[in-house]
Structure formats: structure tokens, C-alpha cells
């Protein structure tokens, strides 16, 4: 049991470090402490240009980028045919929205379908197509959207 876990963590840690580094320019590590069944998965994330810090003191945006890199890392180890994101970029500034879009592209590149709900132009501009959802009197409908008309 310990062996299988250690092997999976090894692969996941490698993918997490690689993807977080590629996407953000910072560095990330992951390792297993303790042994089965009291094992724990430790994570350290160092945003670009910052000294190492406790995970709890990362900012909302820094945590979001780390979490999204983790999703992509798990996906690299165990791919899924579809990924659904609902405003995962809510706390991201423009630069980090572009990093999120890179992560979406990594997921789609391996053949998966990616549906991403967003209110932000930086994220949506990376999509292959955009669906608009509207409501009238409590009933929702879907229309096609042309990005060039999208309000900034």
C-alpha cells in the first residue's frame, strides 16, 4: 500500500513542480510525510519573486494559481475526458488569468473537453468558442457570442 502511494505521489509531485514552474515562473514541491495510514501530503509553493512561505499566508490569487496547477498535475497523472471550471479565476488579476488560460490549454492539448465559466476577458479570449447564457423571467437560454463584442 505504501509503495503504490509513494509511486503515485512521485509522479504527481513531478507533474506539479513542472506545471507550476512552467505556468507561473515560481517553484513548487510536494512530498509524503508519515506512512500509511497516517500519511500526509505536504505542499510548498513559492510564487515568482517571493521568498518561501507557509501555505496559509499565500494570497487568494496565489492560492488559486497553486490549486489550478494541482488540478492540471492530477490530470497529467490520471487524465479525464472532461473538466468543468466555474469562475475559478474570480480572484485572479489579468496576468494570472493568462496563466489560468495556459493551464486550460494544457488540459485541452491532451484531448480533453474543457468548459470554463468566466466573467473575465483575459480568460475567455483563450477559449476556442464562447457561449453566452441569458435569463428572461427566470428561464435560461444559450446564445453564441462573438468575443470582439464582449464588454471589457
Amino acid at each position, binding site marked *: 500500500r505504501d509503495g*503504490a*502511494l509513494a509511486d*503515485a*505521489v512521485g509522479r*504527481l509531485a513531478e507533474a506539479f513542480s513542472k506545471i507550476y514552474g512552467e505556468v507561473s515562473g515560481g517553484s513548487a514541491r510536494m512530498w*509524503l*510525510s508519515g506512512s500509511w495510514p*497516517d*500519511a*500526509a*501530503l*505536504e*505542499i510548498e*509553493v513559492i510564487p515568482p519573486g517571493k521568498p518561501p512561505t507557509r501555505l496559509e499566508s*499565500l494570497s*487568494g490569487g496565489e*492560492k*488559486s494559481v497553486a*490549486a489550478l496547477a*494541482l*488540478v492540471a498535475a*492530477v*490530470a497529467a497523472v*490520471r*487524465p*479525464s*475526458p*472532461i*473538466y*468543468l*471550471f*466555474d*469562475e*475559478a479565476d*474570480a*480572484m485572479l488579476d489579468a496576468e494570472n488569468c493568462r496563466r489560468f488560460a495556459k493551464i*486550460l490549454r494544457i488540459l*485541452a492539448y491532451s484531448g480533453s*473537453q*474543457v*468548459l*470554463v*465559466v468566466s*466573467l473575465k476577458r483575459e*480568460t*475567455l479570449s*483563450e477559449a*476556442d*468558442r*464562447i*457561449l*453566452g*447564457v*441569458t*435569463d428572461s423571467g*427566470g*428561464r*435560461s*437560454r*444559450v446564445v453564441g457570442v462573438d468575443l470582439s463584442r464582449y464588454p471589457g
Partner: protein
Amino acid sequence: PTIREVRIRNFKSFRSLNLPLLPGITGITGPNGSGKSNLLESIAFVLGHRGRGLRAARLGNLVSRGARRAEVTLKIATRSGERTVSRGIRGSTGFYRIGGRIVPRYRAELLLRELGYRADWYTYVAQGTVTRLVEMSPRERVGIVEEIS
């Protein structure tokens, strides 16, 4: 496999929708309260996601106001042809279909799993939950790895 179409009947704010889907990245946008989350939830619902991601205390709350039945169907293109999987609610009990015929839940879940669809935490990041992945305790995080080992 790729979901080619989502057909929704009376799921939350969607009364009737036939939505073709394509591979790659599809952006979804629109004003607050328009139904974006409901659309993602309708897909997550068929794929077996439960609980907090569907924002409903009871299954019956997923049925459109005033209707008695809800059903969401996914048309999935696979290497060996097209499969359609549906999940629905009548009153407050759920039902499943494959190719239009009612089947027990385990059969629908088995088919989805065979196609690679798993209702794992990392395949649906619900609104407002993204930082939770990092805020979990190290002990809880081991659960992530157990699913993939």
C-alpha cells in the same frame, strides 16, 4: 470520448435546451443569475457529482420550478460509436437511462466509468471552491492521491 450534445429538460432554470458541444476549450459567460452554473451542474449531475456542487438540499430542488420531472441527456461520441446517457428526477427520486431505456444506477455509472468519466474533485471545480484544494489539511490531501494510485 467527447460529449457531442447536452439535452436538458426542466433542470433548474433550463426548461428545454439542446446544446451541441465541441472538443477543446468552450468559454461560458453571461450576467449574474443567468444560468451559467446551472449549465455546468446539469453536466456534473449526469456524470455523478453529488452534494455541494449541485447547491440543492434535496434532489427535487434540481427540478425546474413548477415542473414534476427533470432529465439531462449527454450524447457521447466514442471510438466505437455514439452512446447516450441520461439522468433524471421524477418527484424526488432519480432515474437513469442508456440509449433511452431505463437502467439501474450501477449500469449507468459503469458505462460512464468505462468511458473514463469519473466524478472526481479535480474534474469539476464548483464556484467559490478553487482555493479549497490548497486549504485542505495535509492529511485530507492524501485522499487526492489515493484516488489516482
